[in-house]
């Protein structure tokens, strides 16, 4: 049984009690993914599984046999930071930085959802295409809390990359 984390094949834990979050941090020493509440309330542990954003604290690692996990460590390339990483710096999208890996993974997942037309609670027309307005981004990112209160910068960073397409 094995998982693929940022493209590398890694073993699953032998104890089925180990969450995906603890496996990433303690087992694989990928400490970019953060443990906030450890009960599904804060979003700090958000990672991408086959491109979909999930909470790794509520996931048992053994459930992800053969799946592709992407963490914050897997986003930058040899050319530099992921555009969202650069935009968070440019737009002051963090203060302490603890929620940032989850925010950025969540925003990448959100972009894919919006692109395939998944509506949100604030979408007027359930049958229409999605425009990532400020209100839409705020609603779609509501599962990621920032106790420093950097939400305005976070939304601006996401808008800059996903809406305005500004290369960061």
């Amino acid at each position, binding site marked *: 049984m094995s998982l693929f984390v940022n493209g590398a094949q890694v073993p699953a834990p032998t104890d089925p009690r180990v969450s995906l979050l603890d496996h990433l941090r303690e087992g694989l020493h990928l400490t970019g993914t953060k443990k906030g509440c450890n009960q599904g309330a804060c*979003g700090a542990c*958000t990672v991408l599984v086959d491109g979909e*954003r*999930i909470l790794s604290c*509520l*996931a048992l690692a053994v*459930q992800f046999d053969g799946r592709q996990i992407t963490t914050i460590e897997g986003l930058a390339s040899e050319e530099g930071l992921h555009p969202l990483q650069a935009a968070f710096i440019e737009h002051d999208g963090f203060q302490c930085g603890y929620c940032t890996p989850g925010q950025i993974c969540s925003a990448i*997942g959100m972009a894919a959802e919006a692109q395939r037309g998944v509506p949100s609670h604030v979408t007027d027309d359930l049958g229409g295409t999605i425009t990532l307005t400020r209100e839409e981004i705020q*609603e779609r990112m509501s*599962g990621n809390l920032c106790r420093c209160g950097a939400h305005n910068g976070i939304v601006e960073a996401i808008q800059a990359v996903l809406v305005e397409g500004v290369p960061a």
Partner: protein
Amino acid sequence: MNPFQYARADDAADALRRGAISGAAYLGGGTNLVDLMRETIARPDQLIDVTGLPATIAETDDGGLLIDAAVRNTALAEHPAVRMRYPVLSRAILAGASAQIRNMATVGGNLLQRTRCTYFYDAEGARCNKRTPGSGCDAREGFNRIHAVLGASDACVATHPSDMCVALAALDATVHVDGAEGQRTIPFADLHRLPGDQPDRDTVLRDGELITAIALPALPTGARSAYRKVRDRASYAFALVSVAAVLQLEGDRVVDVRIAFGGVAHKPWRATKAEAALRGQTITQQVVLDAAAAEFAEARPLRDNAFKPALVARTLAAVLTDLARGEAA
């Protein structure tokens, strides 16, 4: 977390065989069960992962939909047929939890999340008859703003937190289950229990039974549906109250109306008295408020939640007047 053995079920028969063992539990997205296990409130010693079971949404011969239990909440909310024909269901799902949790959670798991309150979770600090039968209920005399006003008992005043289930109650869904005694179907409104003197039991499912699918009947021609949720913050919070409604008019008269409330009871509350009061009527603010009053005639508010009947009534009036004008969803 207590030790357990993990197995991934190949199909429903495999899941049922493994689930027949005492102490076994089925695992969907884990968004409630894993959390409860971490708090050692749930202590299964066998976990049977059923996320690999079929996850399709299929058209049925009667014009409805058959939704496999392993379908993820996001997949159901975004399905074109659900968005087009059952907007109340899309809207309810999208009003619940966060995007990450909706991506994980399965339909079957959403139905089987625990009816609960904060005292249920406080294993070290609070008495709870749902967690430990016979221990008492600290919510009844405690902070009970989110608690039930209808159908509660001395033993338990918790509410069922699902938004999706409120829509399914209004849609007259049917739950397909499989178990040692064979397959059966349960009308959605009968799946969840009122607490009575057994608040540790949330549903009528028997030991080892597995939800395999949810069937949605076709809605009457011209029926409109909507969901509205009222909560303490704009997103990512449980409902204080919510309303799901399906309305069919002929001219301006109500031919058929189906209403369910969230946040008011131990189960999604099908408002049959309000429905009866509304049939044949023309929707006005006062007509709806009177119908809601009929539903809440036997409400038993607690110290902090006496606002709920009036809040539901106003929310229902807003939903139905919007639907009657063709403005909602």
